[in-house]
């Protein structure tokens, strides 16, 4: 039984079964959803068991004829780049069901179903080794999310849902055209049509074609990330989405963009990526600072966290386009940690929203006294998101910054200031919500965090600490793939070293023999 | 300047003039009758084109059957007295001008590019020739015409039947 397909289709299968559940059996529905997602997670862990640390390419590859006429295959595979994102997805879904155990009163069945469908779509997008297959999953995940935001969302949900959908679809449709063109060119050169990602690497293209395709792909992913000028859909979507929606959106869906950059943009168009790296890095750095600053003045908790995502994802993009191995590993790790910490933040905001039905900072204050346990969890999540060493956030950011410092020192320094800003807005949030005297009478009697929410939080915290304390568990598995990616970008000649390194800022491999630019 | 030419011009003039009457006269009855006249003129043209059989058919089918049908309907709905209200000037203007342009262009192109030179020596257009061809290659469409007419009959029966509460269910936006 091919493991990837198993846990790829398990959620959908569950959803189909679920469709025949009686509407009334809410407990059963939720339980079944949780069970299915947990099963998926357990199965997906099997990937780790059979994992070959040394191998750079795809593992557990499955490849079947699908649309032979166009050389489209049902190709699945997982490598160091996608491994942790896949696991993150399967890991977060049960947590969502747990956290939403009592909070979804409207159409619980449809809710669970849409999340299961979404899970399959997301896993598929990470696993697909075939461009069209990827695209299909990439778009498939929009529909359930649209429904989730639109049906279970807040007051202004329609606007948010439509905005979310149109922004993303606009990008991805142009990318579709790019895909077609790319494949067509490759077809001309290779003679046989194929959508296999790895075979499309190194398709020769004319300069203009490269440029256009690069921007077609980049636009799609940049919207998804979201990169600075295209980020405005995110706060609305986050604010209006139900807790689970926000968690998935921030935790996994945004990673589609960064993942796309890594898997497609860089290896497809290395020259263009190098050429426009400075632009992308500039945008991401702007995003980091901008997102942080805007987050700081938000009156609404969820908006604040949403903008913080803009800031944190900026780090990922920075790392990717710095194009040093360290930075890329860092940004992959940062994707995972962001999924954990921001997911946790949204979860907790959801918890308190459900009790007080307001997200305005002004309505809170001093609830550390009424819900101490909750406060502890929240502070932990905040600290991990601030990037406190010993928790997950730090490692990723450090690797990104240190790595990008090699090639883009100025950008990395400016980005590093984002670390300060993160502390500013997140501690501001904590102080406003939890500390100080209780001003609002309603806050005197908030029930503390409930069993299911604790159950949802604990695994998150565990992994935050794990990544923070022993990140090698994660880095070692992604290292070969990233190395391989670097060679794909730079060509085999410069395997370890980075091609953009001819700016005088090369890191010497052996510390003993120090060589600074002057020394050379 | 043979007789043929004279006949051609005379009847061409008739056809055009009556056609214009059809288009311009306010009373449908007059229109219908002048259309008949115009069709007659066309029949003459067919004769000039060495297709007497078709000319006969033109007179019988068109002037005979179809136009009678028209008149019948006009009478049935006794529209002979209704004076047609004037239409919107823009529509009128655009209609006339565009038609003028179209016609002039068309005529110009025909004069310039339509083939000239002697027509073919003989033109098998007798009822016999027609029949033979008709039942060789065109037997299938010929049969299908029956379906066309059948459908038309069924349809006209269906549509023209009184609908009882038709007006009762009148709803307007």
């Amino acid at each position, binding site marked *: 039984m091919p493991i990837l397909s198993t846990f790829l289709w398990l959620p959908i299968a569950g959803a189909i079964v679920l469709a025949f559940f009686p509407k009334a059996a809410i407990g059963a529905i939720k339980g079944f959803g949780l069970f299915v997602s947990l099963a998926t997670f357990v199965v997906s862990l099997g990937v780790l068991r059979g994992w070959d640390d040394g191998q750079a390419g795809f593992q557990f590859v499955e490849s079947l004829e699908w649309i032979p006429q166009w050389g489209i295959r049902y190709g699945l595979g997982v490598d160091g780049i996608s491994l942790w994102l896949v696991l993150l997805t399967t890991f977060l879904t049960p947590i969502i069901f747990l956290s939403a155990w009592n909070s979804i009163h409207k159409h619980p069945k449809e809710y669970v179903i849409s999340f299961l469908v979404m899970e399959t779509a997301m896993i598929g997008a990470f696993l697909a080794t075939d461009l069209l297959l990827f695209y299909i999953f990439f778009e498939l995940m929009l529909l359930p999310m649209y429904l989730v935001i639109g049906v279970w969302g807040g007051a202004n949900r329609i606007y948010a849902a439509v905005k979310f959908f149109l922004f993303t679809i606009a990008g991805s449709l142009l990318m579709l055209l790019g895909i077609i063109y790319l494949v067509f060119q490759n077809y001309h050169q290779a003679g046989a049509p194929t959508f296999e990602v790895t075979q499309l690497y190194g398709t020769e293209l004319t300069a203009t074609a490269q440029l256009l395709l690069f921007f077609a792909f980049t636009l799609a992913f940049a919207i998804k990330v979201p990169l600075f000028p295209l980020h405005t859909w995110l706060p609305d979507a986050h604010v209006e989405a139900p807790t689970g929606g926000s968690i998935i959106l921030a935790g996994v869906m945004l990673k589609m963009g960064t993942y796309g950059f890594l898997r497609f943009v860089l290896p497809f168009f290395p020259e263009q990526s190098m050429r426009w790296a400075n632009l992308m890095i500039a945008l991401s750095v702007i995003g980091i600072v901008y997102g942080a600053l805007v987050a700081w003045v938000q009156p609404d908790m969820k908006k604040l966290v949403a903008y913080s995502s803009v800031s944190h994802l900026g780090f990922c993009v920075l790392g990717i386009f710095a194009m040093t191995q360290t930075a890329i590993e860092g940004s992959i790790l940062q994707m995972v940690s962001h999924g954990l910490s921001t997911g946790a933040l949204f979860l907790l905001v959801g918890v308190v929203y459900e009790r007080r039905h307001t997200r305005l900072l002004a309505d809170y204050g001093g609830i550390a006294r009424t819900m101490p346990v909750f406060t502890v969890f929240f502070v932990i999540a905040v600290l991990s998101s601030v990037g406190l060493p010993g928790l997950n956030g730090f490692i990723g950011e450090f690797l990104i910054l240190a790595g990008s410092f090699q090639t883009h020192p100025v950008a990395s320094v400016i980005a590093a200031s984002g670390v300060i800003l993160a502390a500013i807005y997140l501690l501001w949030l904590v102080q406003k919500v939890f500390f100080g005297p209780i001003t609002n009478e309603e806050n005197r009697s908030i029930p503390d965090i409930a069993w299911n929410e604790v159950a949802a939080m604990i695994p998150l915290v565990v992994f935050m600490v794990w990544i923070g304390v022993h990140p090698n568990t994660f880095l070692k598995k992604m290292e070969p793939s990233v190395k391989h990616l670097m060679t794909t970008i730079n060509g085999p000649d410069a395997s370890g070293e980075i091609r953009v390194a001819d700016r005088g800022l090369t890191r010497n491999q052996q510390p003993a023999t120090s060589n600074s630019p002057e020394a050379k | 300047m043979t007789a*043929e030419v004279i006949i*051609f011009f005379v009847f*061409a003039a008739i056809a*055009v003039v009556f056609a214009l009457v*059809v*288009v311009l006269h306010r009373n*449908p009855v007059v229109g*219908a009758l002048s*259309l008949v006249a*115009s069709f007659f003129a*066309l029949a003459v043209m*067919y004769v000039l*084109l*060495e297709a007497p059989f*078709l000319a006969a*058919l033109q007179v019988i089918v*068109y002037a005979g*059957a*179809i136009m009678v*049908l*028209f008149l019948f*309907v006009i009478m*049935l*709905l006794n*529209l002979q007295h209704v004076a*047609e209200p004037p*239409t919107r000037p823009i*529509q*009128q203007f*655009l*209609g*006339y001008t565009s*038609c*003028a342009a*179209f*016609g002039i262009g*068309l*005529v110009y192109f025909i*004069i310039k590019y*339509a*083939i*000239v030179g002697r*027509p*073919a020596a003989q*033109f098998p257009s007798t009822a016999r020739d*027609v029949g033979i*061809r*008709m039942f060789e290659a065109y037997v299938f469409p010929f049969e299908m015409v029956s379906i*066309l*007419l059948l*459908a*038309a009959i069924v*349809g*006209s029966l269906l*549509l023209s039947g*009184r*609908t009882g509460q*038709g007006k009762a269910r009148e709803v*307007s*936006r």
Partner: protein
Amino acid sequence: MIPTHWFLILSAILFTIGVMGVLTRKNGITIFMSIELMVNAVNLTFLAYARQFGQTHGLIFVFFIMAIAAAEAAVGLAIFISLYHHRDTIDVDEANLMHW
């Protein structure tokens, strides 16, 4: 022997007149008559060419067009009658329930 394109020109003129009728008249039946006029113009063209080439099937085409015209006439008039039943008029401008 009359040159073919004389007939062609005539038919072009008739066709144009027909179009003019369609565009400028309100009375449905008149419009329909104009359409019949157009169709006849086409017939003339076909016949003229058929004579030019000495082919019979151009001629046969005309037969079929006549049949088509007959069928259309039947249905069309039925439609007008039904329109009249609904609105007591055959002024096509009155038929404007649906727009935009």
